[in-house]
């Protein structure tokens, strides 16, 4: 569903390691070194204990669908409908938004096992989509 005219992320100093990871084929999340909480979206300190000792953790890219919606009226004409927006619950216990690709939209369900699939959109930006685990 992605094409070269959908709005793309503009990485910041805070988020750059996440997007660099995507380009390298690794799903990365911040992890607090004091309490081990995974923090997403990227933050200057831990959202659980406020420690600023955060490292970037390489994740397995495996998870399950926490919730989902199939969009039939896109916010911009650049998105081709229908498409699935989902909250993915990652193995490491954190959540992110993405699209679920690789199956009919009506097959997507809560708790469906999925894994990350990176797609290079531009030289700078690779997006982490999710597909059903085979």
């Amino acid at each position: 569903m992605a094409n070269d005219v959908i709005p793309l992320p503009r990485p910041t100093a805070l988020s750059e390691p996440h997007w660099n990871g995507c380009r390298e084929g690794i799903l990365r999340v911040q992890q607090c070194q004091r309490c081990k909480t995974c923090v997403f979206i990227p933050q200057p300190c831990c959202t659980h204990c406020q420690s600023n000792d955060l490292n970037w953790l390489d994740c397995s890219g495996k998870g399950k669908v926490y919730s989902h919606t199939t969009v039939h009226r896109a916010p911009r004409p650049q998105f081709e409908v229908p498409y699935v927006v989902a909250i993915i619950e990652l193995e490491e216990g954190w959540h992110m938004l993405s699209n679920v690709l690789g199956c009919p939209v009506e097959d997507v369900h809560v708790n469906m096992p999925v894994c990350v699939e990176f797609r290079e959109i531009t030289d700078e930006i690779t997006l982490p989509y999710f597909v059903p685990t085979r």
Partner: protein
Amino acid sequence: MSGSPLQQIAIVGAYNTPQAKQLQSNEIDVLLNAVQGALHSAGMRIAEVDGFNVTSSTQRFTSRQSVMLFGARPGWTGSDIGIPAIIEAALAINAGLCETAIIATAQVSAHRERKKTAPWTRPTNEFVECWGLFTPAEFALMARRHMHLYGTTEEQFAEIAATIRNNGARHPAACHYGKFVTPQDVLNSRMIAEPFRLLDCAMTSEGGAALILTSAARARDLDVQPVYLLGGGTDKQGMAYVTAPVWDKYGDVGRRAAKQTFSQAGLHPTDVDVLEIYDPFSFEIIRQLEVFGFCSLGEGGDFVMEGHLRMDGRFPMVTNGGLMSFSHAGLAQLIQKPISAVQQLRGEYPEELTVKDAKVALTSNGGSGALFTDVLLLGTEVPS
């Protein structure tokens, strides 16, 4: 009883300008019309107002500018929006920073590029925008999780949307006046973001609104029925539309605000006569019924199907048609909830939309997908 300091404050003026899908008027003219209408409703002159929160979003008109426009008198200016703006103004009056405050806002011409959804529904954050997320999808992700956990159904959503829209169909000032729908019409409308169909969603429109607050002492000198602030609370859980709307983290947003509100008022949900609560999407009504304490978690869908929210039910809701049928005009819609409550409690609605002997109205702003919910309880009498 000692009571909340909010109870020493009353709303004495409340007014909506004409609302429409698209207005021909200039936004500042609509704003001025809102101000004049609220003053007329209160029986006051602008010279009696010394607190200002008068803004327009598209024109970026600020409260400081409005003070200048109204004669450059020294005045207190507010900075919040919606229900928190009312609480902020009430506390300013209570602290002696001003005696009478006006809150007014208007929006015209914000959404004219119809190939895209309304600009305020399209977040630009780097972890949201690229997935084609927009407001209906944010709220749909909450609704879907609730359906998964509690078996809530689209038929329950349709009952809500039809009830709200049929109230608006009977309200002569509603944008969708005369447009009656059945639950089946809702289920037959085109899909937007599953499980939400077109008629489950708020409309977009243009218009202005204003209300005037003053001390209870001053209110007694006016020739109007004051509507008192019985209690209020806010609940913010982070920035809206930048991160995943995870039900387990954010699904009960507003529970704290409602608890504070009822506690301040010394009242319970069973004391409420009418619900002028936030209706951006049908499901959000179910969620609020649960977190505000009208029913237990997971039981909102069944509660709705028992008919409690209809005009002849125990808790008539959104009696002007709300965001789905009356209007959804930028920030004005936030204060239009308390305005509807004031008009309902003053008995200003058409007979078939009047809740007989209503004394207490619950109003709210926000919603789970937006990660905030603010609550304000209004009444014709201060609890003794």
